[in-house]
């Protein structure tokens, strides 16, 4: 069989890689202050890639192209767009961080971020487990380096931990791929699905594969108990990188998880949904409870990220268009709130130095009312209070879980949300009801504030008018293969 060479569904990745290579060459050859050019190149790459992705919404060709490697469905389009949006905001934040702290600045930030983005946009469209694995490594390796880029001790330590544990989890994933091949004789996700449909009797090998794949991807989405790296890495990494990866990695890994499990392993869904439910329950409870004991905002948000991974998994227990749609909506909403809140963390500083302990938020409202209002909005949304996107998202995933018979999981999620509300409300109380102790000055830089405004707008619009994206999410939740 000759591979068909329809490259159109692959254009976003080509554009991103091209922009990354231009950035690398420029970094090697140019002299003097280079960041405006870097930023322009990278932003251009992302905007063009987004345009190419948008054009794919109405793609009418085969479900997969390039010898079954790339899927062309709307799940890939919507997840790519979310990742690209996160990358856009991450670039703004990163550029600002470089301007503020030239000593720790590296021009490689821009191409590395683009490579990571490429891995993510590739993984959400990957229709072959080998491509999934490749994309996973591309994004992971880039993220390891991005985490340690400033060269400070905390960053290097976080980078190394991330790398070691990441390698550990990749091994599980790869082992899962091998098991799938053993069970079905193929690594192409649609063919796996066909091979498993209608098969009766012993499914042990395929089930083992499902568990191993879930472990590998569960690590990437920070699902407990595979979440241990998350607080350390989120805290140690530069805040701009944390903002980017907390949103984009989750979207990418969840999209891959949806494709692998809801397409490839669809026939086994009665067997793997309990596993997903177990991970969801542990993540929701551990993430919510452990967030309470944190005194550092970045660690607190990291545990919150674990809990939110659990909520998204809750939606996926439904394993139907309802559940996938609810989870996609959740991912979009979560991306906006997590990037926004980390962006606020990035500018709540003393002169040039990051302050991430909770005390830095005392009386923020007095110092900078707009910043405090935006942070309050993100926190309220993370807590899941109307009229924010977080509320609609939670309603969606709980509804899907109840529809699939997981009433206990939805109940647990609601209880955990109540406990976690304390975490977020505590920061709001600090910001609005406590007088500032010291003369902290928040950073007036414009670039992060653009990212904050984008996040706040999405959180509010999706909270007030969820109907605007319902159709998009629904059509993306219908998987085509």
């Amino acid at each position, binding site marked *: 069989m000759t591979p068909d060479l329809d490259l159109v569904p692959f254009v976003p990745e080509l554009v991103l890689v091209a922009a990354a290579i231009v950035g690398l060459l420029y970094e090697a050859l140019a002299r003097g202050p280079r960041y405006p050019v870097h930023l322009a190149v990278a932003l251009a790459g992302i905007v063009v890639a987004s345009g190419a992705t948008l054009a794919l919404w109405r793609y009418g060709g085969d479900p997969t192209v390039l010898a079954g490697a790339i899927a062309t469905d709307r799940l890939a389009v919507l997840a790519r767009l979310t990742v690209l949006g996160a990358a856009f905001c991450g670039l703004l934040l990163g550029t600002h961080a470089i301007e503020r702290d030239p000593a720790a600045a590296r021009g490689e930030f821009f191409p590395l971020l683009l490579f990571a983005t490429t891995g993510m946009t590739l993984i959400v469209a990957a229709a072959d487990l080998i491509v999934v694995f490749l994309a996973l490594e591309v994004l992971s390796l880039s993220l390891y380096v991005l985490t340690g880029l400033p060269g400070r001790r905390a960053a290097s330590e976080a980078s*190394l*931990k991330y790398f*070691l*544990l990441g390698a*550990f*989890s990749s091994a*599980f994933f790869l082992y899962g791929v091998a098991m799938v091949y053993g069970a079905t004789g193929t690594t192409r996700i649609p063919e796996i699905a066909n091979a498993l449909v209608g098969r009766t009797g*012993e*499914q*042990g090998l395929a*089930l*083992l594969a*499902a*568990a191993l794949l*879930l*472990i590998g991807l569960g*690590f990437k989405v920070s699902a*407990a*108990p*595979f979440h*241990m*790296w998350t*607080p*350390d890495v989120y805290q140690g990494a530069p805040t701009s990188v944390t903002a980017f990866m907390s949103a984009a990695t989750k979207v990418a890994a969840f999209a891959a998880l949806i494709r692998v499990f809801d397409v490839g392993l669809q026939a086994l869904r009665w*067997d793997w949904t*309990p*596993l997903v439910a*177990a*991970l969801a329950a542990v993540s929701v409870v*551990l993430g919510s*409870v*452990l967030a*309470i*004991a944190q005194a550092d905002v970045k660690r607190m948000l990291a545990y919150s990220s674990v809990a939110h991974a659990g909520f998204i998994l809750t939606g996926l227990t439904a394993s139907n268009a309802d559940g996938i749609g609810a989870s996609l909506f959740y991912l979009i909403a979560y991306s906006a709130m997590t990037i926004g809140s980390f962006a606020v963390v990035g500018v709540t500083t003393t002169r040039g130095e990051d302050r991430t302990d909770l005390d830095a938020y005392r009386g923020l409202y007095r110092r900078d009312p707009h910043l405090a209002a935006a942070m309050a909005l993100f926190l309220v949304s993370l807590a899941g209070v109307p009229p924010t996107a977080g509320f609609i998202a939670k309603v969606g995933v709980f*509804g899907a879980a109840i529809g699939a018979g997981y009433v206990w999981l939805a109940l647990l999620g609601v209880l955990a949300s109540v*406990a976690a509300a*304390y975490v977020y409300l505590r920061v709001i109380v600090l910001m609005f009801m406590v007088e500032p102790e010291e003369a902290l000055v928040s950073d007036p830089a414009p670039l992060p504030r653009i990212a904050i405004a984008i996040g706040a707008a999405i959180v509010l619009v999706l909270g007030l*008018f*969820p*109907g*605007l994206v*319902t*159709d998009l999410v629904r059509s993306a939740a219908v998987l085509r293969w």
Partner: protein
Amino acid sequence: MVGAELTSAAVTPTLGLLWLVPALPLAAAAVNLFWGRRLKRAAGWLASAAVGAAFVLSALVVAELFRLPAQERLFVQHLFDWIRVGAFRVGADLRLDALSATMILVVTGVGTLIHVYAVGYMEGDPRFGRFFAYLNLFVGAMLLLVLGGNYLLLYVGWEGVGLCSYLLIGFWFEEVANANAAKKAFVTTRIGDTAMLVGLAFIVWRFGTLDFDPVLGRAGATLTEGAATAIALLLLGGAIGKSAQVPLHVWLPDAMAGPTPVSALIHAATMVTAGVYLVVRSAPIFEASPVALPIVLVVGLVTMLYAGTSALAQTDIKRVLAYSTISQLGYMFMAAGMRAYAAAMFLLVAHAFYKALLFLGAGSVIHGMHGEQDLRAMGGLLRRMPVTSATTLVGVAALAGVPPLAAFFAKDQILEIANHTGRPLVWALGSLGALVSALYVGRLAALAFLGRARSRAAERAHESPPTMALPLVALAVGAAAAGALNVVPEGRLAHLLEPVVGAVPHGEGIPAWALSTLGGLIAVVGLAATWVVYASGRVDHEMLAARLEPIPRMLGAGWYVDAAYERFVQAPTLAAARFIAGVLDARGVDGLVHAIAGGVVGIARIGRRIQTGFVRSYALVFLFGAIALLVLVGARS
């Protein structure tokens, strides 16, 4: 029959602009909220321009609508799906028909004039931009309320105007009394709003939708009498709160703590009419119940007489007008209770003109007298503030019902319908109410503008700036001419509204010309009587009042309803709240919560200890997790 089958018109370029009508004031509100301080005086002009543009657009859109044949005068603009949960959907739909058309013209028309007036009135206020942001937000919310194509959108606007009312009553919150008045308004209307929300839940339960068309079109067929009564009374609860009807009227007189343009716009011309609009809009539900409309009639009648008599003894010029507003709203409820929806809407429009005029005139007086609001300190202002006095006197005559001004027609038609539909008692009490309103408004005019000045402030009063005087003139023209809209009960306005609200009820009784003559006479006699007592100098009215005690004191205190509420509702509620908060909550609920919270924190501390920072222990946890998952798989297969 109400709610005859209307077919929705196709979108045309002009009709397609409908969404801009609420969007323009809302956008201006956002601009003023963020940049109001920087815009300085321009904030006021921006706000006025936004509402003015909304008025022009409304006029264009409504003109386009009325160019269609009568049975096609309905335009629903679907903006987007707002909420979709399973089969239940709520769209962001705007609905333009004769009823909402009337409302948007009143809201934006009167609103524009009041905005312009406020530019002069609020001059020099430190929160000038903020004020106009709230005012614009209010207009936007009110437009949403009347344009909403379903009950949920209506409710959003309903709560929006409630919020703005709270913010604006307490706008000068530095004074505790103002903040308390704002709180009182919010809490009192909340009681009604809660009833209304329960009513909406009932509608969803019975109809599975909140859209007007299916609910109102099938109300008679779907609802049992009991269900219709329940829903209608719950909706009426909301209307009573918002329109300050007895027994939830107590907030409106206190709401006069807000700046006077607010009193004019919100507490006279627009927001308080939302209750009337709700009843008229929901008429099919009310008609499906055997008792709902009679209850509306009784509520209106009681309110009309109660508030009218209370207005007789007020000394604060704005409180006279506040009670007058309540009384006039009572008239509108009476009309709706007799199925005379067109008459209710006609009085609503006419009232918007002359009451806005009276309030703005009162505001101009207060402005000219540097904050004095006591009628006893005024007098003889006709000479010192000629424009204000002349225009306000037009408003006075219009409210009293002097022919051929607005209320002469509007009030007269309600009384005529009462008489002709076999309700002689309603007609007699209504005529008595008309006399009372001529008396209280005549007393206001005589005390403020005629006679001699009774204080230094009154001697030194000065005319207001043109931004305040011009809207007065415009409103005076409106108050004088609004009667032309509907000179007989089956007049032009009634005809336009007929496809939405149904035909005007009619029957036999005392001939219409005799009723009209009587109505005109009542107005003229009432005004003349007040002139004799208060302005001619022939009667010592203070002595007269002293001899009538304790009646004036009782009326002045609003029949002691406030005091009774404080004693029998507020005090027991507070005591109960104190018991619950201090004993039950602190020891019981909080104790439990603290215990749980302590437990959670304890678990969190232990969990934190596992997070050692060593990669090896992380890998170990990972491994345990993986083994657990694999065991789970093994156990299942």
